[in-house]
């Protein structure tokens, strides 16, 4: 049933590479019914507030990919200044800074980096951003609490 026919060679190549040579701490597996839809799991990076968390994401390659960026969203609830309650991600390369020379791999790496370095100055989740600025220790505690509740295996 997989719709491999008509799939651009670039997507096939990227998928192969992702499966053969995965990025440490990231797994991306295409859905068997739709090769443009990926189930992604990102491990919280070590020595970050999200260490030990397992985050599920969905990634979708639109028709005009790579001219348009992939659509990515967290499915697991997360307390992060740049990720809102719906899991939408505030990341420049997913919007106006997209370039077709970027890949699924680089996008996921950037998301992983965003977990390591939350940026409360460019917030999408105001509650988290405010707390991050006011009391970083408590913000990190809340993030860990979210992991305990939602992102533990």
């Amino acid at each position, binding site marked *: 049933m997989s719709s491999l026919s008509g799939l651009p060679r670039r997507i096939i190549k990227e998928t192969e590479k992702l499966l053969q040579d995965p990025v440490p701490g990231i797994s991306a597996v295409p859905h068997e019914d*739709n090769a443009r839809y990926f189930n992604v799991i990102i491990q919280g990076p070590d020595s970050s507030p999200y260490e030990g968390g397992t985050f599920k994401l969905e990634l979708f390659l639109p028709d005009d990919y*790579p001219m348009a960026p992939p659509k990515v969203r967290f499915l697991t609830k997360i307390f992060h200044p740049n990720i809102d309650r719906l899991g939408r991600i505030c990341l420049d390369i997913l919007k106006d800074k997209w370039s077709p020379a970027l890949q699924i791999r680089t996008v996921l790496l950037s998301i992983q980096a965003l977990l390591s370095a939350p940026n409360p100055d460019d917030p999408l989740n105001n509650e988290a951003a405010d707390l991050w600025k006011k009391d970083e220790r408590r913000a990190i505690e809340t993030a860990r609490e979210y992991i305990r509740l939602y992102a533990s295996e």
Partner: protein
Amino acid sequence: MISNVQPHGTLQQVFLSLWNAIQEGESIVSCKICGETFKAPMMLQKCSHVFCSLCIRRWFDSNSICPECRIPSSAGELCKVRLVEDFVELWDTLSRKAQTVNDLVMSNPLRSDLYSNTYQPSEVVQSFYVNSSNSNTDEEGRDVPGKKSRDNKIDTPKRKQRKKKRNNVQEKDPSHKIAECPICGIHISIRLIQHHVDICLTKQSCSEENISDRVFFSGRLNGTSSNAHTEAPLESTFEKRPTTLWYKNLSDRKLKDILQYYGLSTRGDRNMLIRRHKEFVFRYNAELDSKFPRPVSSVIKDIEEWEKQQEWNSISEEALNPHLETTLSYNEEICHIAKSDFESLVQQAKKTMFKTNSNHRLSNLCLESINNEDILVFTQQEEGDN
């Protein structure tokens, strides 16, 4: 170098490293946008990054930076790089040959006899090279290994030379390449095609003026010389290179006229017409950028195929969308959160309005717009605050 290599595995290692090098080379000769080997490679003047003509033209339609380094750039700054084009061709040949050798030997344990001490590795390589042009023998070789090895053993130097010669003639002498005449479609030796096309063109210009069947230019069809960097002016089918237009100012009628002029279909809604025109402009220009441009009719055919593919994609996407349910619940979730956010905003607004006006006795009109329960809550809160 190869003759110094000791047999048994070592040759295998040499080949493997060669194979890896070729595989790694793919990323150098591949476009960062489409992931395929460059087609009509174009270089950006400022940063020297190279992309397929079609890929980069599509990108520049709505962007004005280099995809790799983000330096401001535009379609006007593209220039051809024939050297890259030639290099891609070379790599293609190299990788195909390596693939043949790989299929023939590396994955075939029955052929391990070729690594035995009785063979000079250079000879072995030589025999692969000759055999690679004959796929039937490969198949036989796999089924009947004995026969294969005998074949190799009785390869006298003379016979080998003959084989080599034949092979070289096929592989290297460009005069034996066959090309298709873009006008009448007959296959003809590339050495004679220039002459043939001239005749064809003369015939055609006498008969009818059909845009879609004329070639872009005739001067480059004899492209056997790889250092054809001297740019002859393109004899284009149309007066000038088509460009994307300021579509907002174009009526549907005018747009259809333009499409018709290029020999394109005029069916579909406005968006489709615009998309078709843009795609034609990109593809036509990319065709002009390539070493051997094809006729307009092929470009039009490609666009029809492309549209079919796009339609099919959109249908299959709807049918196969696995996260439709997710999307549905996602939408509900958005609605829910947006609703609660909106409500809290309204409440906040009411609260501030009430506070600022309460001292001056809020006008009845205003009070009526706020429902009574809210007022009760707010009044109580205010009392508490006071």
